[in-house]
Structures are given as structure tokens and as C-alpha cells.
């Protein structure tokens, strides 16, 4: 039983470690597909909203009322 408990804890630990390593190697499309001439080091201004994370449920949803209305003709 002890071996089983250690195994489960270890599996979860390795899984979490893997998630951190994989996430750290993850790059945004704007990082991966930009060239040195493209100034996208501050993605806020040319992405959807200043805090765009790529997730549909990101910081936007928490402060939905705060975001500026999109420009619309």
C-alpha cells in the first residue's frame, strides 16, 4: 500500500513538473511567427484587447465591463 501511495504521489508530481516544463517551452503565435522587424514585444496594442492571453476565458471575463467597446462603424 505504501508503494502504491508513493507511486500515485510521484505520478502527480512528475505530471505537474511536466506541465511546468511544457508550459515554459510554449510560445505564443505572436512570438513564434514574428520577425525582428516586427515590434510585437508589447502585444497589448495590436492584439484583441490589452490583456489578450489566447484563452477565451481570460482576464477579460473577470473584468468584462472594464474593457473598451470595440470600434465599430
Amino acid at each position, binding site marked *: 500500500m505504501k508503494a502504491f501511495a508513493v507511486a500515485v504521489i510521484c505520478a502527480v508530481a512528475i505530471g505537474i513538473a511536466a506541465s511546468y516544463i511544457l508550459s515554459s517551452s510554449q510560445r*505564443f*503565435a*505572436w512570438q513564434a*511567427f514574428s520577425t525582428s522587424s516586427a515590434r510585437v514585444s508589447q502585444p497589448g496594442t*495590436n*492584439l484583441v484587447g490589452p490583456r489578450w492571453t489566447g484563452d477565451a476565458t481570460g482576464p477579460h471575463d473577470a473584468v468584462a465591463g472594464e474593457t473598451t467597446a*470595440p470600434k465599430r462603424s
Partner: protein
Amino acid sequence: MARMKFLCDADRCIECNACVTACKNEHEVPWGINRRRVVTLNDGKPGERSVSMACMHCTDAPCASVCPVNCFYTTADAVVLHSKDLCIGCGYCFYACPFGAPQYPRVGNFGSRGKMDKCTYCAGGPEPDLSTIEYEKYGSNRLAEGKLPLCAEMCSTKALLAGDGEMIAQIYKERVIKRGYGSGAWGWKTAYRETVAI
């Protein structure tokens, strides 16, 4: 209801990329994500042709079929849309899409690449039409305003046609008859299981 389609007249496309730029600007598409792109075939050789390609909003769309969470739906205009709330970013739609339309905000590994993004035919998403939340997730909803996709509307040579499939096929057919040539409706056979007879 109309059956919305895209048709790129490759004999008119001059690879100006205005459609790409129009799309990016209209929807504030993030850098690195291309809902629409222009591919040049046989570049630099005689017979070179450019084709502007995005989601073709297929009949019996493969992406919708393979999605493990069924996040795709087809509107009354036969536009294939998806819900970013349901999408889990698994990438099955990318495997299934014949046109490479699905895009992900993060590249590198499959684990946490985020919600899929693709051409919406300027028709937004499942949120209420013309709402802020819809704009932030899917871009603007021109169809709800009675307008056609901006890429086709902006096309300087009118190579890219958008609208009811029968109407744009008719326009293309007339062009072909008048000028005497045409390299066909690119992708139609794969997307709609039919092509424009020329």
C-alpha cells in the same frame, strides 16, 4: 437561406494580400494568427497562380465531425462556426481540415495551446450578435450587419468572391465565358463536393 461560400478566382488574384490585411484589421486578429492567407503556387514559373485561402465553411465539415467536444455548429447560412468556451484545443480539427484553417494562440506543444481560432466568415460566434464579448472572442460580425466578409469586399481585383454559392458560381461562370479561360474554383471539390463547371 443562402449557402455562403468563398470562391477565389486564381486568374485574377495578384497576391496583394489585401484580404489578409483586411481580415486581420477587421477582427483585430493577433499577430501570428492568419485566418486568411495567400498561397502562391508554382512561384516564379510560367503559369504561377495565387490562391487566397481561409476556412471554406465546408459542406459536412470534417472539423465539426471530429471535434471531441462538438464545439462546432453550422448557421442557417451554412457558415461553420465554433464555440471557444467549449473548445479544448485538442487540434483534431487541424488534422481534419483540408485547408489548414484552424489556428492556435500558442505554438510549441499540444498541451496548453489555447482555444482554436479560425475564419468566422465575418459572422462572429455563439454569443449574442454584435456584443463586446463576441467581438473579443471571434471578431466582428459583419453578417449580422448585413455585410459580406471584408476580405472579399476589399479584394481589389474582385478575385475573392464571397456570398451565396450559386450567385458567386454564376459570376465566376460569366467571367470564364467572357474571357474564355479559368483555372477553376480552388478547393470547391474538397470543400463542397462539387465544382463550378467551366
